[in-house]
């Protein structure tokens, strides 16, 4: 209960533009959000950028938070930022393909993706999952969201969400054990 009150005070402070409140929010959520971004991108540099983008956006967006589960709210923003990043990456890829087709080697965009930073077992297994399932598993794990909240966030039936997360976690379990 005390934690909830503390968080409510921090959020109020952020809404009033208090720098210290943002510092507290950053220290409370940076670990979870960074883990979420890293597990989805497997790239520290991209994760750094996405985390920065999220907190800078939060300065303006925090006034729109109207109560409810703050974790669900902030992870919804994180999910949007990640999906925007994916779309931009796909656009770059498409542009690269078109330029390849035109055989314009001299103006090719440089390869944006850097090599993965880690090769831990979990990361390798996560790579085998489809992106939708991977994101759902990470949203549940780092956002500590219930299946009902996940279903609401993704606007999908709870049965679909249950099935995807179960499939993902079962795969992780089978491959690790």
């Amino acid at each position, binding site marked *: 209960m005390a934690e909830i009150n503390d968080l409510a005070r921090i959020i109020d402070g952020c809404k009033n533009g208090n*720098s210290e409140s943002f510092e507290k929010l950053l220290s409370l959520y940076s670990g979870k959000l960074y883990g979420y971004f890293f597990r989805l991108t497997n790239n520290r540099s991209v994760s750094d950028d996405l985390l920065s983008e999220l907190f800078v956006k939060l*300065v303006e967006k925090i006034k729109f938070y109207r109560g409810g589960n703050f974790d669900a709210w902030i992870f919804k923003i994180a999910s949007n930022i990640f999906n925007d990043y994916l779309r931009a990456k796909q656009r770059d890829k498409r542009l690269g393909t078109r330029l390849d087709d035109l055989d314009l080697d001299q103006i090719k965009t440089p390869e944006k993706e850097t090599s993965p930073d880690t090769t*831990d077992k979990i990361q390798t297994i996560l790579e085998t999952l489809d992106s939708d399932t991977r994101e759902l598993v990470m949203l549940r794990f780092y956002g500590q969201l*219930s299946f009902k909240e996940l279903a609401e966030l993704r606007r999908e039936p709870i049965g679909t969400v249950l099935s995807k997360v*179960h499939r993902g976690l079962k795969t992780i379990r089978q491959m690790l054990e």
Partner: protein
Amino acid sequence: MKPENENLEELFGKFLNENDARKAAEDITQGEKLLNEYPAPKPEAALLLSIQARINNKLRQTKKHRSISIGYWSTATAAAVLIIGFISITLLNRTQHPQITDRPAFAVSLETEDDFLQDDYELLLLAAQLQDIEDEFMAVQSGLNGYYSNIADELEIELLEINSDFWKG
């Protein structure tokens, strides 16, 4: 509701039989336990400092933007109040001292009425002069001799002239 408070078996029980629901719930619990055993890297301190600096910068921009917006609003409001005040005063003055600009029908009739009054006054003045001359003429005619007969003729002529001038307009 936090995931630890969820009754996974009950949740899966809506879609699966009891045995499968229990197994599915077990898969979820064990899978999440494994994820805990392999934590993702933490953000570096330098990154957090950089983010905090960007947040502070954004906060400053937002505050500056807000005060500029307030300034614009205040100026616009003051200008609107001045314009409305000016229009109100102008309209009020017009109501108190109406000015005829388009000469509507009622104004024309008022003007015509004024002209009639002026004409009546002039007519009365003329009638009084005529009466004076007539009196003078009658006095001369009643029992006066030849010395005054010329004067009587002159007065009669004068009277006729005035009379005809008047009817000429």
